[in-house]
């Protein structure tokens, strides 16, 4: 499986509103336990749609290695 070079990374001040889950074309983001959004690294293609809509501005698009 070929992974994209970039991926979304969620900051710790996520408010779990779910905006990102609605726009993700790959369904790579989920709200885990009502606490925070989580990105499935294998599904994420780093398109940045989630970062554009995040009202809390906590999503960054980063190089794969940097998020881990």
């Amino acid at each position, binding site marked *: 499986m070929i992974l994209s070079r970039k*991926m*979304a*990374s*969620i*900051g*710790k*001040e*996520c*408010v*779990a*509103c*779910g*905006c990102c*889950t609605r726009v993700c*074309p790959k369904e790579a983001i989920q*709200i*885990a*336990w*009502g*606490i*925070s*959004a*989580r*990105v*499935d*690294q*294998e599904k994420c293609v780093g398109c940045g749609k989630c970062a554009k*809509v*995040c*009202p*809390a*501005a*906590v999503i960054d698009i980063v190089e794969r290695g940097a*998020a*881990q």
Partner: protein
Amino acid sequence: MKKATKKKWSDYLWIAELCYLFLGLFNILFAWLGMLFFCIPLFVAIFGGSKAYCNRYCGRGQLLGLLGEKLKLSRNVPPPKFLRSPWFRYGFLTFFMIMFGLMLFSTYRVFTGAPLSQTVTLLWVFKLPWQWADVSFVAPWIGQFAFGFFGVMLTSTIVGLVTMVLFRPLSWCVYCPMGTMTQGICKLRNGKKSKEYGRTGKEDSRTAEGAGQ
């Protein structure tokens, strides 16, 4: 290629939000229906341990999204840092709960014999006369609660609309008292589980670290 998404009934809950606001204008007693918007998210968080209400069923969020994204009424810029800070979020929740408590207290005063005040308080300060509302056929405290609660709902809608225009469409969600409360409940309920999963899961580790805090 754009993802084909089939609309579900829950995608139209913004209509319920609009109906609520209009019905309240015609008959203030409809304000009581707003208790559903208050209680359902709390029940979902307490018994279901999730923010499913915010994520899928919040009519206000959908309405703000429609106005901001579809009608392009939003400037679509990130909100300022202070608005996103936990201090502001929890501070606003505290302020909101104090104002809610005062509203309940005035309801109690009417219950114990004080005269009914036929006003709707907007933005916690402005008292709008609401004389056309007929609440003579119910107990005065029921009417008083309706006036107070409709003020709370209108105020939060106005604040949400203002931040929608100024910042991103769903900026209200950042400091929405219900969202803050339900997230807090979920943290209390699921914080430990979430931390454990973060250590073994393949998800973004930045989130995993912060999720349980």
